[in-house]
């Protein structure tokens, strides 16, 4: 599952674009081969500035010089007319144009004994019907591509604060663009607003409604409004938009410093909260009607976000199945097993785990947030065996702190180098057992780690032995590194700005 909001895809990369035209023409190629006993049939067309080719026999599109020439020559002829070209040894290439722009044509090659005149007339009749169907399908594909491209543009690619992750996936069945959206807005120091919404309908109008409501929601959040006020504001906008009936949305404002979330839901599935040490809990104390359903103040509720908690907002596509009541138990169960994963993986795995066998009927948007966990703190006798213990603690804590895999690997190496220096040299000349300690904390998107000991720091570079390399490595891996050495011991403090 890839994050389709993270990039603006080329229309040609969107699944299903070009497929229905391809299916139509591939089917026509197979039919013509069977009907006329042709050995090779090829169709080509252009869509979204790309040339496509299908043919028979499959797999692999046949590419013969005779057919390519026939396809090229027919381009200046009227739609439906058939061009016949001898190709030697009594064989003939027949080509028919499928669109007035001269970009789509179908061609086949007949063996020597085939009745060229009758086949040519029959091909002309087939091409006439095919041309109409081709034009309709191509137009539908273009409309969907435009709609999806607009939707992606409106969903934006703004950088998110650390710990927030959004994932969305269009429904599996080919059709028009969906109307789910999700948004993350930094309000002020430590406060972040989020909205997840679902516009009924899946056409270009739904995409337009989505764009308006999303922009309005961002503005309301940025002005510091409470979730209830944000949804009331969206009620006003939705009233003015005829296509906005039945839009649902959930809004939450998270105080990342205090560890609280205030939320309100307009007919939308309630958020789910799971702490590292407690079972998933549905935040359903502020459920109300969909947007614009009536004019009244919106309810707001507040919940505590314990350290390491995961908050999940989603659209009902994640759990809704045709003909079934909305079942949030499946979200809770899936989430319960993933409390300690990086929030990106939580979102990815929720989408993957809850997917029906045939793929989702509806679009799905999932937004996850991870509250920073309790600080990591560990100390032990400074022997070599502790290095593996420290790594395993870091490997569990870093994903919980929403540190991405690549940053985590670097953090483990930096701490490992500092701890190894203690283990290797800290004991030098001392009678007592040296202690090594590690601490790590995550605040406002900044990772801060400390490795300390009560021994002796070995920094001198021994020529030829490449000792003292450790600090050089740490400095290359981290943004800020400070080394404090005194008679009580050594303290290496390392900081790194995290990417969302």
């Amino acid at each position, binding site marked *: 599952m890839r994050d389709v909001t993270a990039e603006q895809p080329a229309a040609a990369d969107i699944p299903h674009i070009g497929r229905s035209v391809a299916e139509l023409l591939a089917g026509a190629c197979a039919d013509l081969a069977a009907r006329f006993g042709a050995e090779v049939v090829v169709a080509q067309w252009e869509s979204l500035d790309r040339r496509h080719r299908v043919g028979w026999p499959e797999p692999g599109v046949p590419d013969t010089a005779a057919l390519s020439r026939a396809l090229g020559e027919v381009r200046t002829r009227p739609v439906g007319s058939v061009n016949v070209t001898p190709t030697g040894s009594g064989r003939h290439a027949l080509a028919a144009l499928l669109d007035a722009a001269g970009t789509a044509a179908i061609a086949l090659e007949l063996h020597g004994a085939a009745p060229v005149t009758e086949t040519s007339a029959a091909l002309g009749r087939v091409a006439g019907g095919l041309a109409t169907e081709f034009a309709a399908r191509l137009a539908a594909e273009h409309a969907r591509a435009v709609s999806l491209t607009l939707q992606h543009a409106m969903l934006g690619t703004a950088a998110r604060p650390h710990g927030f992750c959004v994932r969305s996936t269009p429904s599996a069945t080919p059709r028009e663009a969906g109307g789910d959206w999700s948004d993350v807005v930094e309000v002020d120091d430590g406060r972040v607003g989020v909205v997840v919404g679902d516009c009924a309908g899946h056409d270009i109008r739904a995409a337009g409604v989505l764009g308006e409501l999303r922009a309005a929601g961002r503005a309301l959040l940025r002005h510091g409004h409470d979730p209830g006020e944000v949804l009331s504001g969206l009620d006003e906008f939705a009233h003015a938009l005829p296509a906005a009936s039945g839009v649902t949305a959930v809004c939450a404002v998270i105080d990342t410093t205090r560890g609280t979330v205030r939320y309100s839901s307009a007919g939308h599935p309630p958020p789910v909260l799971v702490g590292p040490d407690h079972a998933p809990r549905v935040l359903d104390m502020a459920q109300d009607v969909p947007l614009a359903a009536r004019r009244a103040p919106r309810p707001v509720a507040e919940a505590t976000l314990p350290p390491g908690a995961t908050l999940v907002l989603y659209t009902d596509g994640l759990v809704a199945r045709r003909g079934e009541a909305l079942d949030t138990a499946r979200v809770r169960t899936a989430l319960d097993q993933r409390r300690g994963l990086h929030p990106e993986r939580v979102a990815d795995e929720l989408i993957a785990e809850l997917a029906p066998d045939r793929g989702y009927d509806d679009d799905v948007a999932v937004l996850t947030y991870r509250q920073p966990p309790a600080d990591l703190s560990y100390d032990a006798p400074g022997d070599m*065996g502790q*290095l*593996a213990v420290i790594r395993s603690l870091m490997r569990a804590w870093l994903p919980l702190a929403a540190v991405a895999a690549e940053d985590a690997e670097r953090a*483990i*190496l930096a701490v*490992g180098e500092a701890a190894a220096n203690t283990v290797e040299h800290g004991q030098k000349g001392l009678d007592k057992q040296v202690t090594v300690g590690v601490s790590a904390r995550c605040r406002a998107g900044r990772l801060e780690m400390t490795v300390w000991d009560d021994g002796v720091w070995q920094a001198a570079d021994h020529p030829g032995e*490449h000792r003292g*390399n*450790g600090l050089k*490595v740490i400095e290359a891996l981290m943004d800020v590194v400070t080394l404090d050495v005194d008679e009580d011991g050594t303290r290496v403090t390392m900081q790194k700005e995290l990417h969302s």
Partner: protein
Amino acid sequence: VTAPQFSVDMSSAPAPTVTAVGDIDLANVGEFRTAIEAAAAGNEGIQIDMTEVTYCDSAVVRVLFSTAVNTKLTLLVRAAGVAQTLFAISGLDRVTTVSVVD
């Protein structure tokens, strides 16, 4: 029975190969050195497959630097992995051949 963390294949082409897996730190870098010395004995060059190494640090870099004095080293590492980063930072990639495997 778990597979050995460091294995040596003297008959592999184009050169004897040491394959390392898992974490390498001060606690086991000695075994890594022993495997490398066994492969390097009497050979001009060796290959060290580190694509399955999940952690290594300066202790490993020191062993590789000292081996590289007399032996041609080709190091296979995972793309964007921690070993590749470490070898670039330490300058090890200037005295060995670091081959990145996707």
